[in-house]
Protein backbone atom coordinates (compact mmCIF):
# COMPACT_ATOMS: atom_id res chain seq x y z
CA UNK A 1 0.00 0.00 0.00
CA UNK A 2 1.00 3.59 -0.56
CA UNK A 3 0.89 6.44 1.87
CA UNK A 4 1.04 10.20 1.50
CA UNK A 5 3.25 12.21 3.84
CA UNK A 6 2.56 15.92 3.96
CA UNK A 7 5.00 18.30 5.61
CA UNK A 8 4.55 21.99 6.30
CA UNK A 9 6.53 24.39 8.51
CA UNK A 10 9.47 26.76 8.80
CA UNK A 11 12.34 25.83 6.48
CA UNK A 12 15.59 24.60 8.01
CA UNK A 13 18.57 22.46 7.04
CA UNK A 14 18.08 18.70 6.95
CA UNK A 15 14.31 18.19 6.77
CA UNK A 16 14.37 15.83 3.79
CA UNK A 17 17.50 14.12 5.11
CA UNK A 18 15.89 13.35 8.46
CA UNK A 19 12.53 12.22 7.08
CA UNK A 20 13.99 10.07 4.33
CA UNK A 21 16.30 8.48 6.90
CA UNK A 22 13.24 7.44 8.94
CA UNK A 23 11.73 5.95 5.78
CA UNK A 24 14.91 4.03 5.03
CA UNK A 25 15.20 2.70 8.59
CA UNK A 26 11.69 1.30 8.26
CA UNK A 27 12.33 -0.21 4.83
CA UNK A 28 9.92 2.24 3.24
CA UNK A 29 10.58 3.23 -0.36
CA UNK A 30 9.97 6.78 -1.55
CA UNK A 31 8.17 6.90 -4.90
CA UNK A 32 7.86 10.61 -5.41
CA UNK A 33 8.53 13.94 -3.74
CA UNK A 34 7.17 17.37 -4.59
CA UNK A 35 8.64 20.15 -2.54
CA UNK A 36 8.70 23.96 -2.48
CA UNK A 37 9.87 26.74 -0.21
CA UNK A 38 7.57 29.78 -0.26
CA UNK A 39 8.53 32.79 1.85
CA UNK A 40 10.59 30.59 4.21
CA UNK A 41 7.71 28.11 4.56
CA UNK A 42 8.69 24.61 3.65
CA UNK A 43 6.01 22.44 2.02
CA UNK A 44 6.46 18.90 0.80
CA UNK A 45 4.40 15.91 -0.18
CA UNK A 46 6.02 12.48 -0.34
CA UNK A 47 4.46 9.37 -1.82
CA UNK A 48 5.87 6.30 -0.14
CA UNK A 49 5.42 2.55 -0.38
CA UNK A 50 4.89 1.00 3.04
CA UNK A 51 4.15 -2.56 1.95
CA UNK A 52 7.54 -3.98 2.86
CA UNK A 53 7.78 -2.27 6.24
CA UNK A 54 7.53 -4.52 9.26
CA UNK A 55 6.34 -1.72 11.46
CA UNK A 56 2.61 -1.09 11.89
CA UNK A 57 1.55 1.76 9.66
CA UNK A 58 0.17 3.77 12.59
CA UNK A 59 3.47 3.47 14.48
CA UNK A 60 5.40 4.69 11.46
CA UNK A 61 2.96 7.61 11.14
CA UNK A 62 3.51 8.47 14.80
CA UNK A 63 7.29 8.33 14.45
CA UNK A 64 7.12 10.72 11.50
CA UNK A 65 4.80 13.11 13.27
CA UNK A 66 7.04 13.19 16.33
CA UNK A 67 10.13 13.88 14.23
CA UNK A 68 8.13 16.72 12.70
CA UNK A 69 7.32 18.17 16.09
CA UNK A 70 11.01 18.20 17.03
CA UNK A 71 11.78 20.22 13.90
CA UNK A 72 8.78 22.51 14.30
CA UNK A 73 6.93 20.97 11.33
CA UNK A 74 3.38 19.71 10.95
CA UNK A 75 3.50 16.26 9.42
CA UNK A 76 0.58 14.05 8.44
CA UNK A 77 0.94 10.49 7.25
CA UNK A 78 -2.18 9.03 5.69
CA UNK A 79 -3.21 6.04 3.66
CA UNK A 80 -3.46 6.87 -0.06
CA UNK A 81 -6.95 5.32 -0.25
CA UNK A 82 -8.36 8.19 1.82
CA UNK A 83 -7.40 10.71 -0.85
CA UNK A 84 -8.35 8.41 -3.71
CA UNK A 85 -11.82 7.81 -2.32
CA UNK A 86 -12.41 11.51 -1.83
CA UNK A 87 -10.98 12.97 -5.02
CA UNK A 88 -11.32 10.29 -7.68
CA UNK A 89 -14.50 8.89 -9.15
Amino acid at each position, binding site marked *: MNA*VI*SVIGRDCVGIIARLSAICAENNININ*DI*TQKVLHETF*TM*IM*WVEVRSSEK*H*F*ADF*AKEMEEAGKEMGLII*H*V*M*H*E*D*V*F*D*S*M*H*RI
Partner: protein
Amino acid sequence: MLNHSDIMETIKMIDEEHLDIRTITMGISLLDCVDRDPDQFCERIYEKITRLAGNLVATGEEIARTYGIPIINKRVSVTPIGLVTPGYSVEDMVKVAHALQRAAEACGINFIGGFSALVHKAATESDLNLIRSLPRVLKETTNVCSSINVATTKAGINLDAVKLMGEIIKECAEATAEEDSIGCAKLVVFANVPEDNPFMAGAFHGVGEGECVINVGVSGPGVVSSAIKKMPDANITEIADVVKKTAFKITRMGQMVANEACRRLNVPFGIVDLSLAPTPAVGDSVAHILEEMGLERCGTHGTTACLALLNDAVKKGGTMASSHVGGLSGAFIPVSEDAGMIRAASEGVLTLDKLEAMTAVCSVGLDMIAIPGDTSASTISAIIADEISIGVINNKTTAVRVIPAIGKGVGDVVEFGGLLGEAPIMPVHQESSEKFINRGGRIPAPIHSLRN
Protein backbone atom coordinates in the same frame (compact mmCIF):
# COMPACT_ATOMS: atom_id res chain seq x y z
CA MET B 1 -1.50 11.27 -9.40
CA LEU B 2 -3.28 13.28 -6.75
CA ASN B 3 -2.53 16.95 -6.70
CA HIS B 4 -1.20 19.05 -3.87
CA SER B 5 -4.37 21.02 -3.16
CA ASP B 6 -6.58 17.90 -3.01
CA ILE B 7 -4.27 16.38 -0.42
CA MET B 8 -4.16 19.53 1.67
CA GLU B 9 -7.94 19.86 1.44
CA THR B 10 -8.48 16.38 2.89
CA ILE B 11 -5.95 16.90 5.67
CA LYS B 12 -7.55 20.22 6.58
CA MET B 13 -11.00 18.62 6.71
CA ILE B 14 -9.87 16.05 9.24
CA ASP B 15 -7.47 18.22 11.19
CA GLU B 16 -9.30 21.51 11.50
CA GLU B 17 -12.87 20.97 10.37
CA HIS B 18 -13.81 17.94 12.50
CA LEU B 19 -14.46 15.56 9.62
CA ASP B 20 -15.01 12.14 11.12
CA ILE B 21 -16.90 8.92 10.82
CA ARG B 22 -19.54 9.42 13.46
CA THR B 23 -20.48 5.80 13.90
CA ILE B 24 -19.97 2.27 12.69
CA THR B 25 -23.10 0.46 13.81
CA MET B 26 -23.45 -3.29 13.61
CA GLY B 27 -27.03 -4.45 13.20
CA ILE B 28 -27.71 -7.87 14.71
CA SER B 29 -30.88 -9.90 14.26
CA LEU B 30 -32.23 -11.44 17.46
CA LEU B 31 -35.11 -13.24 15.72
CA ASP B 32 -33.46 -16.62 16.22
CA CYS B 33 -33.01 -16.01 19.97
CA VAL B 34 -36.74 -15.98 20.76
CA ASP B 35 -37.69 -18.05 23.78
CA ARG B 36 -40.70 -18.11 26.09
CA ASP B 37 -38.27 -18.24 29.01
CA PRO B 38 -36.76 -14.76 29.59
CA ASP B 39 -33.60 -16.18 31.20
CA GLN B 40 -32.91 -18.38 28.19
CA PHE B 41 -33.56 -15.44 25.88
CA CYS B 42 -31.17 -13.19 27.83
CA GLU B 43 -28.47 -15.82 27.69
CA ARG B 44 -28.89 -16.27 23.94
CA ILE B 45 -28.87 -12.57 23.07
CA TYR B 46 -25.81 -11.98 25.25
CA GLU B 47 -24.01 -14.84 23.52
CA LYS B 48 -25.00 -13.70 20.02
CA ILE B 49 -24.19 -10.02 20.49
CA THR B 50 -20.83 -10.64 22.11
CA ARG B 51 -19.94 -13.26 19.47
CA LEU B 52 -20.73 -11.02 16.49
CA ALA B 53 -19.72 -7.63 17.91
CA GLY B 54 -16.83 -8.76 20.11
CA ASN B 55 -14.29 -7.42 17.62
CA LEU B 56 -16.23 -4.36 16.54
CA VAL B 57 -14.45 -1.83 18.73
CA ALA B 58 -10.96 -3.22 18.06
CA THR B 59 -11.63 -3.30 14.31
CA GLY B 60 -12.97 0.25 14.31
CA GLU B 61 -9.91 1.46 16.17
CA GLU B 62 -7.61 -0.41 13.81
CA ILE B 63 -9.28 1.21 10.77
CA ALA B 64 -8.99 4.62 12.38
CA ARG B 65 -5.29 4.01 13.04
CA THR B 66 -4.57 2.75 9.55
CA TYR B 67 -6.38 5.50 7.66
CA GLY B 68 -5.88 8.34 10.06
CA ILE B 69 -9.62 9.07 10.15
CA PRO B 70 -11.30 9.44 13.54
CA ILE B 71 -14.13 6.93 14.06
CA ILE B 72 -16.01 8.33 17.02
CA ASN B 73 -18.52 5.63 17.94
CA LYS B 74 -18.74 1.89 17.56
CA ARG B 75 -22.26 0.69 18.34
CA VAL B 76 -24.73 -2.15 18.01
CA SER B 77 -28.39 -2.16 17.05
CA VAL B 78 -30.67 -5.15 17.51
CA THR B 79 -34.10 -6.37 16.42
CA PRO B 80 -36.84 -4.37 18.19
CA ILE B 81 -37.09 -6.13 21.52
CA GLY B 82 -40.88 -5.81 21.55
CA LEU B 83 -41.00 -8.28 18.64
CA VAL B 84 -38.95 -11.03 20.28
CA THR B 85 -40.29 -11.06 23.83
CA PRO B 86 -43.60 -12.94 23.62
CA GLY B 87 -45.76 -12.42 26.69
CA TYR B 88 -42.94 -10.98 28.80
CA SER B 89 -43.88 -9.02 31.91
CA VAL B 90 -42.49 -5.59 32.82
CA GLU B 91 -40.07 -7.36 35.17
CA ASP B 92 -38.89 -9.61 32.33
CA MET B 93 -38.35 -6.60 30.08
CA VAL B 94 -36.07 -5.01 32.69
CA LYS B 95 -34.13 -8.28 32.77
CA VAL B 96 -33.70 -8.17 28.98
CA ALA B 97 -32.47 -4.56 29.16
CA HIS B 98 -29.85 -5.62 31.70
CA ALA B 99 -28.72 -8.43 29.39
CA LEU B 100 -28.29 -5.85 26.61
CA GLN B 101 -26.37 -3.62 29.01
CA ARG B 102 -24.04 -6.48 29.95
CA ALA B 103 -23.48 -7.31 26.28
CA ALA B 104 -22.70 -3.65 25.52
CA GLU B 105 -20.18 -3.55 28.35
CA ALA B 106 -18.56 -6.80 27.24
CA CYS B 107 -18.15 -5.45 23.69
CA GLY B 108 -16.91 -2.06 24.91
CA ILE B 109 -19.53 -0.14 22.91
CA ASN B 110 -21.06 3.06 24.26
CA PHE B 111 -24.63 2.48 23.09
CA ILE B 112 -26.81 -0.44 22.10
CA GLY B 113 -30.04 0.46 20.30
CA GLY B 114 -33.17 -1.58 19.79
CA PHE B 115 -34.99 -1.64 23.09
CA SER B 116 -37.82 -0.67 20.80
CA ALA B 117 -41.44 -1.27 19.93
CA LEU B 118 -43.31 -0.71 16.68
CA VAL B 119 -46.81 0.34 17.71
CA HIS B 120 -47.87 2.54 14.80
CA LYS B 121 -51.19 0.79 14.40
CA ALA B 122 -51.61 -0.81 17.79
CA ALA B 123 -49.50 -2.25 20.58
CA THR B 124 -49.23 -5.89 21.59
CA GLU B 125 -49.10 -6.86 25.27
CA SER B 126 -45.30 -7.23 24.96
CA ASP B 127 -44.98 -3.81 23.37
CA LEU B 128 -46.97 -2.26 26.21
CA ASN B 129 -44.88 -3.98 28.85
CA LEU B 130 -41.71 -2.86 27.12
CA ILE B 131 -42.96 0.74 27.12
CA ARG B 132 -44.02 0.49 30.77
CA SER B 133 -40.59 -0.81 31.71
CA LEU B 134 -38.81 2.22 30.20
CA PRO B 135 -38.59 4.42 33.32
CA ARG B 136 -36.81 1.61 35.17
CA VAL B 137 -34.74 0.49 32.19
CA LEU B 138 -33.43 3.96 31.35
CA LYS B 139 -32.62 4.61 35.00
CA GLU B 140 -30.91 1.30 35.71
CA THR B 141 -28.91 1.02 32.47
CA THR B 142 -26.50 3.49 30.91
CA ASN B 143 -25.88 2.13 27.41
CA VAL B 144 -29.32 0.91 26.32
CA CYS B 145 -31.27 3.13 23.90
CA SER B 146 -34.95 2.92 23.13
CA SER B 147 -37.19 4.03 20.28
CA ILE B 148 -40.94 3.72 19.88
CA ASN B 149 -42.57 4.09 16.47
CA VAL B 150 -46.06 5.52 17.02
CA ALA B 151 -47.07 6.33 13.44
CA THR B 152 -46.49 5.64 9.77
CA THR B 153 -47.87 7.24 6.63
CA LYS B 154 -49.50 3.87 5.83
CA ALA B 155 -51.06 3.22 9.22
CA GLY B 156 -51.80 6.70 10.53
CA ILE B 157 -51.06 7.87 14.07
CA ASN B 158 -51.69 5.70 17.12
CA LEU B 159 -52.91 8.43 19.45
CA ASP B 160 -53.21 5.99 22.37
CA ALA B 161 -49.47 5.32 22.03
CA VAL B 162 -48.77 9.04 21.71
CA LYS B 163 -50.66 9.61 24.97
CA LEU B 164 -48.80 6.82 26.71
CA MET B 165 -45.42 8.09 25.52
CA GLY B 166 -46.09 11.54 26.98
CA GLU B 167 -46.66 9.90 30.35
CA ILE B 168 -43.66 7.60 30.01
CA ILE B 169 -41.31 10.44 29.03
CA LYS B 170 -42.43 12.28 32.16
CA GLU B 171 -41.83 9.19 34.30
CA CYS B 172 -38.39 8.62 32.74
CA ALA B 173 -37.50 12.23 33.53
CA GLU B 174 -38.59 11.78 37.13
CA ALA B 175 -36.75 8.47 37.46
CA THR B 176 -33.49 10.12 36.40
CA ALA B 177 -34.17 13.55 37.96
CA GLU B 178 -30.88 13.50 39.84
CA GLU B 179 -28.93 13.30 36.57
CA ASP B 180 -30.75 16.13 34.78
CA SER B 181 -33.38 13.66 33.51
CA ILE B 182 -30.83 12.02 31.20
CA GLY B 183 -33.08 8.95 30.79
CA CYS B 184 -35.09 10.92 28.23
CA ALA B 185 -31.98 11.48 26.09
CA LYS B 186 -31.95 7.73 25.41
CA LEU B 187 -35.57 7.55 24.26
CA VAL B 188 -36.98 8.63 20.87
CA VAL B 189 -40.55 8.61 19.62
CA PHE B 190 -40.75 8.14 15.85
CA ALA B 191 -43.00 8.36 12.83
CA ASN B 192 -41.94 6.34 9.77
CA VAL B 193 -38.89 4.99 11.59
CA PRO B 194 -36.12 3.71 9.28
CA GLU B 195 -34.99 0.11 9.77
CA ASP B 196 -31.31 0.73 9.09
CA ASN B 197 -30.52 3.91 10.98
CA PRO B 198 -27.01 3.76 12.50
CA PHE B 199 -27.50 6.79 14.78
CA MET B 200 -28.54 6.61 18.41
CA ALA B 201 -30.83 6.78 20.21
CA GLY B 202 -33.11 5.65 17.36
CA ALA B 203 -31.08 2.79 15.89
CA PHE B 204 -32.56 -0.69 15.63
CA HIS B 205 -32.11 -3.65 13.29
CA GLY B 206 -35.29 -3.94 11.20
CA VAL B 207 -37.12 -7.19 10.57
CA GLY B 208 -36.42 -6.92 6.84
CA GLU B 209 -32.69 -6.98 7.53
CA GLY B 210 -30.38 -9.98 7.43
CA GLU B 211 -28.51 -11.76 10.19
CA CYS B 212 -25.85 -9.11 10.65
CA VAL B 213 -25.01 -5.89 8.82
CA ILE B 214 -22.71 -2.87 9.01
CA ASN B 215 -24.22 0.61 8.67
CA VAL B 216 -22.05 3.69 8.76
CA GLY B 217 -22.93 7.26 9.68
CA VAL B 218 -20.68 10.02 8.42
CA SER B 219 -20.51 13.55 9.64
CA GLY B 220 -18.91 16.88 8.90
CA PRO B 221 -20.92 20.06 9.50
CA GLY B 222 -17.58 21.86 10.03
CA VAL B 223 -16.39 20.94 6.54
CA VAL B 224 -19.59 22.26 4.95
CA SER B 225 -19.56 25.51 6.88
CA SER B 226 -15.93 26.26 6.08
CA ALA B 227 -16.56 25.51 2.38
CA ILE B 228 -19.38 28.09 2.42
CA LYS B 229 -17.21 30.54 4.35
CA LYS B 230 -14.81 30.65 1.43
CA MET B 231 -17.59 32.04 -0.81
CA PRO B 232 -18.89 35.18 0.92
CA ASP B 233 -20.33 36.70 -2.27
CA ALA B 234 -21.65 33.58 -3.99
CA ASN B 235 -25.31 33.36 -4.95
CA ILE B 236 -27.45 30.64 -3.44
CA THR B 237 -27.16 28.30 -6.45
CA GLU B 238 -23.41 28.31 -6.03
CA ILE B 239 -23.84 27.60 -2.32
CA ALA B 240 -26.05 24.59 -3.10
CA ASP B 241 -23.40 23.38 -5.51
CA VAL B 242 -20.56 23.61 -3.02
CA VAL B 243 -22.63 21.79 -0.36
CA LYS B 244 -23.29 19.03 -2.87
CA LYS B 245 -19.63 18.64 -3.74
CA THR B 246 -18.59 18.66 -0.10
CA ALA B 247 -21.24 16.08 0.81
CA PHE B 248 -19.96 13.90 -2.02
CA LYS B 249 -16.42 13.96 -0.64
CA ILE B 250 -17.50 13.30 2.92
CA THR B 251 -19.69 10.39 1.89
CA ARG B 252 -17.02 8.82 -0.29
CA MET B 253 -14.84 8.58 2.77
CA GLY B 254 -17.73 7.04 4.71
CA GLN B 255 -18.23 4.47 1.99
CA MET B 256 -14.56 3.58 2.00
CA VAL B 257 -14.55 3.06 5.77
CA ALA B 258 -17.76 1.04 5.51
CA ASN B 259 -16.24 -1.24 2.86
CA GLU B 260 -13.12 -1.72 4.95
CA ALA B 261 -15.10 -2.46 8.12
CA CYS B 262 -17.23 -5.02 6.27
CA ARG B 263 -14.17 -6.70 4.81
CA ARG B 264 -12.40 -6.94 8.15
CA LEU B 265 -15.42 -8.10 10.11
CA ASN B 266 -16.70 -10.33 7.31
CA VAL B 267 -20.17 -8.81 7.58
CA PRO B 268 -22.28 -7.51 4.65
CA PHE B 269 -22.53 -3.79 4.00
CA GLY B 270 -25.90 -2.18 4.67
CA ILE B 271 -26.02 1.53 4.09
CA VAL B 272 -24.20 4.80 4.55
CA ASP B 273 -26.27 7.40 6.39
CA LEU B 274 -25.56 10.80 4.87
CA SER B 275 -26.41 12.82 7.92
CA LEU B 276 -24.68 16.00 9.00
CA ALA B 277 -24.48 15.30 12.72
CA PRO B 278 -23.23 18.17 14.87
CA THR B 279 -21.32 17.94 18.15
CA PRO B 280 -21.02 20.60 20.84
CA ALA B 281 -17.41 21.25 19.69
CA VAL B 282 -16.73 24.68 18.23
CA GLY B 283 -16.80 24.48 14.43
CA ASP B 284 -18.95 21.36 14.27
CA SER B 285 -22.37 22.96 14.15
CA VAL B 286 -25.28 22.75 11.69
CA ALA B 287 -26.58 26.12 13.00
CA HIS B 288 -23.29 27.71 11.96
CA ILE B 289 -23.78 26.45 8.40
CA LEU B 290 -27.14 28.23 8.27
CA GLU B 291 -25.58 31.36 9.74
CA GLU B 292 -22.76 31.13 7.21
CA MET B 293 -25.40 31.19 4.46
CA GLY B 294 -26.40 34.64 5.66
CA LEU B 295 -28.59 34.46 8.76
CA GLU B 296 -27.62 36.61 11.73
CA ARG B 297 -28.76 33.84 14.04
CA CYS B 298 -30.19 30.35 13.51
CA GLY B 299 -33.92 30.49 14.18
CA THR B 300 -34.62 33.82 12.53
CA HIS B 301 -36.75 34.19 9.38
CA GLY B 302 -35.09 32.34 6.50
CA THR B 303 -33.84 29.48 8.66
CA THR B 304 -36.26 26.92 7.22
CA ALA B 305 -35.32 27.89 3.65
CA CYS B 306 -31.59 27.60 4.32
CA LEU B 307 -32.06 24.26 6.07
CA ALA B 308 -34.19 22.94 3.19
CA LEU B 309 -31.43 23.80 0.74
CA LEU B 310 -28.77 22.25 2.97
CA ASN B 311 -30.70 19.04 3.51
CA ASP B 312 -31.46 18.56 -0.16
CA ALA B 313 -27.93 19.36 -1.35
CA VAL B 314 -26.42 16.94 1.19
CA LYS B 315 -28.63 14.16 -0.18
CA LYS B 316 -27.87 14.97 -3.81
CA GLY B 317 -24.12 14.97 -3.25
CA GLY B 318 -24.10 12.00 -0.94
CA THR B 319 -26.30 9.72 -3.01
CA MET B 320 -23.82 9.53 -5.86
CA ALA B 321 -20.96 8.84 -3.47
CA SER B 322 -22.41 5.70 -1.92
CA SER B 323 -23.71 2.44 -3.32
CA HIS B 324 -26.54 2.29 -0.76
CA VAL B 325 -27.89 5.22 1.15
CA GLY B 326 -30.30 4.84 4.04
CA GLY B 327 -30.98 5.62 7.66
CA LEU B 328 -32.00 9.17 8.36
CA SER B 329 -29.77 10.89 5.77
CA GLY B 330 -30.07 14.64 6.15
CA ALA B 331 -29.12 17.42 8.53
CA PHE B 332 -29.65 16.81 12.24
CA ILE B 333 -30.77 19.64 14.47
CA PRO B 334 -30.30 18.35 18.04
CA VAL B 335 -30.37 21.50 20.15
CA SER B 336 -28.13 20.39 23.03
CA GLU B 337 -25.52 18.85 20.72
CA ASP B 338 -24.94 21.90 18.54
CA ALA B 339 -23.03 24.94 19.80
CA GLY B 340 -24.87 27.29 17.41
CA MET B 341 -28.31 25.93 18.35
CA ILE B 342 -27.51 26.23 22.05
CA ARG B 343 -26.58 29.88 21.60
CA ALA B 344 -29.64 30.66 19.45
CA ALA B 345 -31.94 28.93 21.93
CA SER B 346 -30.40 30.69 24.96
CA GLU B 347 -30.90 34.03 23.25
CA GLY B 348 -34.53 33.15 22.60
CA VAL B 349 -34.15 33.38 18.80
CA LEU B 350 -34.63 29.67 18.26
CA THR B 351 -37.98 28.54 19.63
CA LEU B 352 -39.81 25.23 19.80
CA ASP B 353 -42.29 26.38 17.17
CA LYS B 354 -39.51 27.34 14.76
CA LEU B 355 -37.76 24.03 15.35
CA GLU B 356 -40.99 22.25 14.48
CA ALA B 357 -41.13 24.11 11.16
CA MET B 358 -37.49 23.24 10.50
CA THR B 359 -38.17 19.54 10.99
CA ALA B 360 -40.55 19.62 8.03
CA VAL B 361 -37.55 20.05 5.74
CA CYS B 362 -34.76 18.09 7.41
CA SER B 363 -34.19 14.64 8.79
CA VAL B 364 -35.27 13.58 12.26
CA GLY B 365 -37.21 16.09 14.31
CA LEU B 366 -37.46 17.79 17.68
CA ASP B 367 -34.21 16.45 19.02
CA MET B 368 -32.51 16.91 22.39
CA ILE B 369 -34.75 19.74 23.48
CA ALA B 370 -35.03 20.49 27.18
CA ILE B 371 -38.43 21.74 28.37
CA PRO B 372 -39.59 22.80 31.84
CA GLY B 373 -39.85 19.93 34.34
CA ASP B 374 -43.43 20.83 35.21
CA THR B 375 -44.66 20.37 31.64
CA SER B 376 -47.71 18.09 31.76
CA ALA B 377 -47.70 14.65 30.17
CA SER B 378 -50.52 15.68 27.85
CA THR B 379 -48.53 18.68 26.59
CA ILE B 380 -45.59 16.36 25.85
CA SER B 381 -47.99 14.04 24.01
CA ALA B 382 -49.32 16.99 22.03
CA ILE B 383 -45.77 18.04 21.09
CA ILE B 384 -45.25 14.46 19.88
CA ALA B 385 -48.56 14.46 17.98
CA ASP B 386 -47.67 17.67 16.12
CA GLU B 387 -44.21 16.48 15.17
CA ILE B 388 -45.34 13.02 14.17
CA SER B 389 -48.08 14.52 11.94
CA ILE B 390 -45.42 16.36 9.95
CA GLY B 391 -43.76 13.02 9.23
CA VAL B 392 -46.95 11.16 8.41
CA ILE B 393 -48.32 13.77 6.03
CA ASN B 394 -44.99 14.45 4.33
CA ASN B 395 -44.04 10.80 4.00
CA LYS B 396 -40.81 11.24 5.92
CA THR B 397 -39.23 10.28 9.21
CA THR B 398 -39.80 12.59 12.14
CA ALA B 399 -39.05 12.04 15.78
CA VAL B 400 -39.24 13.59 19.22
CA ARG B 401 -36.58 13.43 21.89
CA VAL B 402 -37.54 15.99 24.54
CA ILE B 403 -36.24 16.18 28.07
CA PRO B 404 -38.59 17.58 30.72
CA ALA B 405 -35.89 18.67 33.18
CA ILE B 406 -37.35 17.93 36.60
CA GLY B 407 -36.97 20.80 39.05
CA LYS B 408 -35.88 23.25 36.37
CA GLY B 409 -37.61 25.95 34.39
CA VAL B 410 -37.08 28.43 31.56
CA GLY B 411 -33.73 30.20 32.03
CA ASP B 412 -32.05 27.14 33.53
CA VAL B 413 -29.65 24.87 31.67
CA VAL B 414 -29.30 21.09 31.76
CA GLU B 415 -25.85 19.65 31.27
CA PHE B 416 -25.34 16.12 29.98
CA GLY B 417 -21.69 16.40 29.01
CA GLY B 418 -19.85 14.66 26.18
CA LEU B 419 -21.56 14.36 22.80
CA LEU B 420 -24.96 15.05 24.37
CA GLY B 421 -23.89 18.58 25.32
CA GLU B 422 -26.02 21.04 27.27
CA ALA B 423 -29.45 22.48 26.67
CA PRO B 424 -31.12 25.73 27.71
CA ILE B 425 -34.68 25.00 28.80
CA MET B 426 -37.13 26.19 26.16
CA PRO B 427 -40.62 27.45 26.96
CA VAL B 428 -43.70 25.48 25.87
CA HIS B 429 -47.23 26.79 25.37
CA GLN B 430 -49.16 26.89 28.63
CA GLU B 431 -52.61 26.26 27.14
CA SER B 432 -53.87 22.71 27.65
CA SER B 433 -54.13 20.04 24.93
CA GLU B 434 -55.40 17.47 27.38
CA LYS B 435 -58.86 16.97 25.96
CA PHE B 436 -57.47 16.26 22.48
CA ILE B 437 -54.90 13.77 23.77
CA ASN B 438 -57.41 12.03 26.03
CA ARG B 439 -59.69 11.27 23.10
CA GLY B 440 -57.36 8.39 22.18
CA GLY B 441 -57.90 6.23 19.11
CA ARG B 442 -56.08 6.45 15.82
CA ILE B 443 -55.65 9.37 13.41
CA PRO B 444 -56.41 7.79 10.02
CA ALA B 445 -53.69 7.43 7.40
CA PRO B 446 -53.58 10.30 4.90
CA ILE B 447 -55.20 9.87 1.50
CA HIS B 448 -51.85 9.80 -0.31
CA SER B 449 -50.92 6.63 1.55
CA LEU B 450 -53.32 4.81 -0.79
CA ARG B 451 -50.88 4.44 -3.64
CA ASN B 452 -51.73 0.94 -4.79
